[in-house]
C-alpha cells in the first residue's frame, strides 16, 4: 500500500480501527496532561462502540469524562476548554447527533480564531461515528461530513484504515484548530497494520491506495475498501483503476486527485453521503474548474447514497448506499462507455 509507513516499521502489528483510536488517545493523554476525552458513556461503559474502552481506568474520571446527554452543551464545553488551554477530544455518540451541536461547532469553534483576530485558538477534536450498514435507520446512519467541508475554520478528516485512524487522530490533537473526525461504525472492528509508536498522518493529504491507468476512483471512509475490492475485480477484467483514499475533506488534496486524473482521464468519486451536495460534488467541481478538466475523456461520475433517508429494512438500506458491486459496475461502464 503506497503512502502507508507501516510496512517499514518492525514494531507495527495488526490491531482494529477502534483499538488504533484508543491507542492514539492513550498516547496523547499520556504525553500531554491537557488532553481530555469527553462524551456520553465514554467512561465505564467504554463508549457506545467500545472505542474508549478502558481509558477511564487508565486516566481517571477527571480526564475521561462521562457527560450528561447534552450535545450542544458538551460541544460548547469543549470550545471553552480549548480556548483556555486544554486539548479536549469530544465523542459525539453517533454523528447524527451533531445536529444538536451545530451552533457551537459552526458558529463558535470554527469562527472564534477569526472573529477574535487570531487572539484565541480552538484546539479541539470531535470524533463522530457515522455511516450506515448497521440497521440503525434514518437517525443513526447518516454521513453528514459534507456539511462541515463547507465551513471555513474547521478541518475534516475521514480515516479509512486503523493506521490512518491513529495517525489522523494524533495530528488532529496536535492541531491548533477544531478538527472533526468522521469515523465509521462498520470500520471499528476491521484490522490493519499500525505502528506502536506515535506517528502522524498529515491532515490534507490524500493517499493513493492502488495505482492504475484507466480511471481514477476517489473514495472516502468505508467506501475505500469497497473501491479496492471493486478494483481487484476490475483488474481481473483488464481494467486498471487508481484508487485514492481522500482522507481529508477539508482541506481537500486537489493536487493528488488532479495528478491522477491527468494520468487516467477518467474520474469517479464514491462516498456514502447522499449523492446530491455530497463531497463528490466538490471534487467533481474542483476538477471541472482545474486544468485537469482538459484531460477528461468522459463525464465525471459520482456514486453516492440515493436521495432517501436511510431505511430500516436491511434490503433497502443496502440498496441506498454504494456497494462493491455498484462501484464495479459504474467503473466498468465509465471505462468502457464513458459512463453512459
Amino acid at each position: 500500500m503506497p503512502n502507508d509507513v507501516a510496512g517499514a516499521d518492525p514494531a507495527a502489528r495488526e490491531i482494529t480501527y477502534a483499538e488504533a483510536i484508543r491507542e492514539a488517545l492513550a498516547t496523547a493523554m499520556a504525553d500531554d496532561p491537557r488532553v481530555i476525552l469527553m462524551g456520553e458513556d465514554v467512561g465505564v461503559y467504554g463508549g457506545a462502540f467500545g472505542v474508549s474502552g478502558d481509558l477511564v481506568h487508565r486516566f481517571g474520571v477527571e480526564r475521561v469524562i462521562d457527560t450528561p446527554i447534552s450535545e450542544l452543551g458538551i460541544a460548547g464545553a469543549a470550545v471553552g476548554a480549548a480556548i483556555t488551554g486544554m486539548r479536549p477530544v469530544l465523542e459525539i455518540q453517533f454523528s447524527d447527533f451533531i445536529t444538536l451541536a451545530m451552533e457551537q461547532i459552526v458558529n463558535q469553534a470554527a469562527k472564534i480564531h477569526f472573529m477574535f483576530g487570531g487572539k484565541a485558538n480552538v484546539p479541539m477534536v470531535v470524533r463522530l461515528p457515522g455511516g450506515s450498514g448497521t440497521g440503525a435507520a434514518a437517525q443513526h446512519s447518516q454521513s453528514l461530513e459534507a456539511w462541515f467541508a463547507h465551513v471555513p475554520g474547521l478541518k475534516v478528516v475521514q480515516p479509512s484504515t486503523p493506521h490512518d485512524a491513529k495517525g489522523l487522530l494524533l495530528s488532529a490533537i496536535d492541531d491548533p484548530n477544531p478538527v472533526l473526525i468522521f469515523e465509521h461504525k462498520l470500520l471499528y472492528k476491521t484490522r490493519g497494520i499500525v505502528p506502536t509508536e506515535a506517528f502522524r498522518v498529515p491532515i490534507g493529504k490524500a493517499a493513493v491506495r492502488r495505482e492504475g491507468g484507466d480511471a481514477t476512483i476517489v473514495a472516502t471512509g468505508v467506501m475505500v475498501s469497497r473501491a479496492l475490492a471493486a478494483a481487484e475485480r476490475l483488474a481481473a477484467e483488464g481494467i486498471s483503476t487508481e484508487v485514492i483514499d481522500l482522507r481529508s475533506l477539508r482541506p481537500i488534496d486537489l493536487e493528488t486527485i488532479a495528478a491522477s486524473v491527468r494520468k487516467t482521464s477518467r474520474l469517479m468519486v464514491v462516498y456514502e453521503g447522499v449523492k446530491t451536495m455530497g463531497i463528490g460534488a466538490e471534487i467533481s467541481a474542483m476538477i471541472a474548474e482545474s486544468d485537469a478538466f482538459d484531460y477528461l475523456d468522459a463525464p465525471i461520475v459520482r456514486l453516492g447514497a440515493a436521495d432517501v433517508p436511510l431505511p430500516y429494512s436491511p434490503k433497502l438500506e443496502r440498496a441506498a448506499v454504494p456497494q462493491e458491486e455498484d462501484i464495479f459496475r459504474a467503473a466498468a461502464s465509465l471505462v468502457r462507455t464513458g459512463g453512459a
Partner: protein
Amino acid sequence: MSTLPRANQRPELSAFDDGTLAEALRKMHLIRKFEEAAEDCYMRGLIHGTMHLSIGQEASAVGSAIPLAKSDYVLSTHRGHGHCIAKGASPDRMFAEFFGKETGYCNGRGGSMHIADVEGGNLGANGIVGGGLPIAVGVGMSIKAQKLDRVCMVYFGDGANNEGAFHESLNMASIWKLPVVFVCENNNYGMSTSVARSTAVANIADRALAYSMPGDTIDGNDLPLVAATARIAVERARRGEGPSLIECKTYRIRGHSKSDRNLYRTKEEIEAWKAKCPIRRLEGELLNHDRLGSARLAEIEADAAREIAAAIEFAKSSAEPDLAGLTRYVYAE
C-alpha cells in the same frame, strides 16, 4: 370507570374498574411478551439493527395511557414498544415492522426506533433522545388551535431531562398552557450514566417548579398509582389548565441495548428490581383485593402469549419491500 373506593383498597386501586385493570394487565403482558419475543428473534438473527427493551417498565407505559382516548396523542422514545402497545397498536404490524416488512406500521422503513401508529394516535418513537419533546409542544398548539378535545402525552427518559429540548419544551408548554403531559420514565440510567451523575437535582419532577407546572415523582412500577396520577394530569390538560410533569421511577431490567455489558451497575441492583416486577405486583394486588381472580389472570396471560405467537407468524409471512420502492415516501405528493 368506577371511582367509588372499595373496602380495604387504596383509592388508586379502587379508582379503576375490573375491565380497565384487566385491559391494563393484558397490555403489560403483551408488552413483556412482545419484547421477550423480539429479543429472542434478535438473538436468532431474525431481527437486525438495534432495539431498546423496556422490560420492567410496563406499568409506566400502560398506566399513563389509561386516561387517554384513541384520539389523544402520544409521542414516544427509543424505548417505546410499551408506549406503542399501550396506545393500542397491534403486535402483528409491530413485529412486521421489526422484521422490515411492507406490512409493518412504517412499511419496514422505520424499525423499532421509529415505530409509529399515526392512526392510533402514536406519533412515533424517536431515535433522538428528547426529540419528541418539542414536537409535543407543536401537537399541543395544534390541539388548541383546532379546539380539539385532545391531549398529547410525551414520554422521555431521565437522560433526556438534561437535553436543552426538555427545557425549551416545558417552558413553552407552560407559557401557552398547552394540553401536554410530560411523562419522564426515570429508570435511573441514561445508558450508563446514573441520574446522580448526570442530573443536578434529586427528583426530575422537581424541575417542574422552573416551569410553574405541577410535578409529581411517583413509583412508576405501581400501575394504579401511575394511572391515577396520569388521570389528574390528563384531566387538567383537557380542562385547558396546562401541562404537567410526571416522573415515574422505574428500572430497565435489560441492558441499554445489545452492546451493554452492565459495567455501570451491580447484579444485586438488577436482581432487587426484578423482584419489583410491575406485572407480578399488579397481579398480587388484584388477588389480594379479590379483583379479577386467578383464573382470569391466567387467561389474560395465556391470551397475550397466543397473540404474540400469531403476530410473529404474521410478520414472518409478510413480504419485504420492493427494491423498486427505495425512494418511495421521501416526499409526500
